[in-house]
């Protein structure tokens, strides 16, 4: 049962889980059992204070990034970290400790969070910060809602010179070029990402393009603030339009459309949230749907592990139109935060039953061996055994969880799958 109300604090009493806009791909915001109450924060979206001197903002957990942008971009402030969609809530961003294209300079969202107002498992409502409850605070950043309900978030916003971006796009020929371009441009640019063609095998494997960006200076940007556009909607489709053939054609066209390096002033929506332009874009995958998969591979000196990962991915067939590679910076303070130094790879995997499970299992073997890990917010197929083996930090997290929630009252479908909670 789901409970949504303007009074989120009341809605969280006796709830087993909180949920925002449901943009996590897997089972992180789904209840462990149909009898569990899930508190939905989307109506609790008030801004409770903003100090233009320091940039400190306090708001209710259900405030969406889109609303935040609508109010603050034009005033010269941005969220310090933005994931690939604006349709996420502050609570969801904290619970997933999200990262963006600027991870190598800004870290995760949690690095910018000052304080949280939370309802913990025994029903108490507390102000939780690095000063008051450091262990609980760190366990909550990236803790996927399992340490308590986040009611309010206080964070430090980023001052921006304009609400537009200056970007450069450059083609990369293969996987070595891709990794090298990414690492090299990260030293000079605050935001970097690469998109690659996941259907290309052989010598051109890993080809795609790299996008680098920074906030545009006031003099470079158009004088008016960018309009956040409304969305187009994809109707429900009887069959998926995304298959090996269409993706391969699409990816080739896309690759060849970027023949020359380009510099441009970009709209923040086009740069940060390209998929937001299409409402229900996931319907392109047809009724069977898809899953996402994202992992980080520490590469240190050599990129052979990335090649092996790519070889398996392309050999087993993973027609993924939106595949993103990003280099990560330092590990965050959240006990289960996803990023760590290395290369993060995000894929769409159309759901094809056992075949997809086998693909994810095979990819996870490589991740495990390389000392990497998977992103819980974008996962449904990782096995508990794999996850536990990837997470040396898990015992610490579980210890904090045991202290604050000895009966494991807070749980989700994800905590059943990955942490072995009872249904």
């Amino acid at each position, binding site marked *: 049962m789901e*409970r*949504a*109300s*303007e*009074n989120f604090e009341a809605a969280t009493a006796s709830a087993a889980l909180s949920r925002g806009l449901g943009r996590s791909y897997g089972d992180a915001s789904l209840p462990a059992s149909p009898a569990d109450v899930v508190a939905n924060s989307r*109506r609790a979206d*008030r*801004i*409770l*204070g*903003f100090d233009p001197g320091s940039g400190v903002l306090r708001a*209710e957990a259900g405030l969406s990034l889109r609303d935040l942008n609508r*109010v603050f971009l034009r005033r010269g402030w941005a969220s310090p970290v933005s994931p690939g969609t604006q349709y996420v809530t502050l609570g969801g961003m904290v619970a997933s400790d999200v990262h963006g294209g600027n991870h190598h300079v800004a870290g995760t969202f949690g690095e910018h969070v000052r304080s949280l107002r939370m309802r913990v498992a025994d029903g108490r409502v507390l102000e939780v910060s690095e000063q008051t409850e450091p262990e609980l605070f760190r366990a909550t950043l990236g803790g996927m809602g399992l340490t308590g309900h986040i009611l309010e978030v206080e964070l430090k916003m980023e001052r921006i010179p304009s609400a537009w971006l200056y970007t450069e796009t450059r083609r990369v020929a293969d996987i070595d070029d891709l990794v090298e371009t990414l690492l090299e441009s990260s030293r000079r640019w605050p935001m970097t990402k690469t998109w690659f063609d996941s259907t290309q095998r052989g010598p051109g494997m890993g080809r795609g393009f790299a996008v680098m960006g920074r906030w545009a200076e006031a003099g470079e940007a158009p004088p008016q603030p960018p309009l956040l556009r409304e969305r187009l909607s994809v109707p429900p489709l009887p069959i998926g339009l995304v298959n090996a053939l269409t993706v391969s054609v699409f990816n080739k066209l896309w690759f060849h459309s970027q023949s020359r390096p380009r510099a441009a002033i970009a709209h923040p929506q086009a740069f940060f949230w390209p998929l937001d332009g299409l409402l229900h874009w996931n319907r392109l995958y047809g009724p069977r749907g898809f899953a996402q998969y994202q992992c980080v591979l520490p590469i240190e000196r050599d990129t052979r592990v990335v090649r092996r990962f790519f070889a398996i991915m392309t050999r087993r067939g993973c027609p993924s139109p939106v595949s993103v590679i990003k280099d990560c910076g330092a590990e965050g303070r959240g006990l289960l935060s996803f990023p760590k130094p290395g290369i993060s790879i995000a894929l769409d995997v159309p759901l094809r039953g056992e075949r997809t499970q086998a693909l994810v299992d095979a990819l996870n073997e490589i991740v495990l061996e390389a000392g990497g890990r998977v992103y819980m917010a974008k996962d449904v197929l990782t096995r508990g055994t794999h996850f536990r083996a990837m997470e040396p930090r898990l015992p610490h997290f579980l210890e904090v969880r045991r202290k604050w929630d000895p009966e494991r009252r807070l749980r989700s479908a994800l905590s059943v799958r990955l942490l072995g909670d009872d249904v």
Partner: protein
Amino acid sequence: MKAVLLGATSGMGRALSRLLAERGESLFLLGIPADDLSRSAKDLEARGAREVGWLECDLLQPKGFAGALERADQALGGFDLVVVSAGLFGSQERLEADPEFCQKLLAANFANTVAFCEEARKRMLPRGGGTLCVWSSVAGERGRKPVILYGAAKAGLTRYLEGLDHKFRSEGLVTITVKPGFVRTSMTEGLKPPPFAGEPDGVARQVLRALDRGTPVVYAPPIWGLVMLVIRNLPRFVMRRIGF
């Protein structure tokens, strides 16, 4: 514009007050409880309102209306827009089973809302008028089995507002009746939404347009205008047989 809003802390009222705040208007919030009002006031200030005041005012306590509007008047230095989106909802089953709650709902949604509007009217007319924008409902268009009691109160309210508009528009007081169909708010939480259910933001944008143009009746989402055209014209024997 200088607006007094009763019920701006939640649902469609919240959405409309945010649009007004983004235009830089001055706002004064009435409602309960105090904590909720002060949080909404902060939100509206952060979203760009010129100034935001608030005072507790309970729709179930009509004795407080005159004093509350007096305070709002002083705080804003005169207002030219009054929005009433507050109201109670109860299912037909609950209202049939609980006479006390039924009495409360009929009073809040009809008699007390009218009393509030009368106080507002008396203040605005001598200054040359303004706009009175009140939430009624499509439930008041016909006697319908699933909403007999709620619908009856809203029917009364709709007729009152219609009369007000006929009589006072020439003197400068514009009355706008908002008739929402199904809109996803906490009031409709748990009910099964029909195919064309609306969102609070969409309704608020429609209402803002009506405020600017003086449109007397707003069906929201607009499709309900057509649905209600049909429903209003169905013969009684058909109404009796359908469950709508």
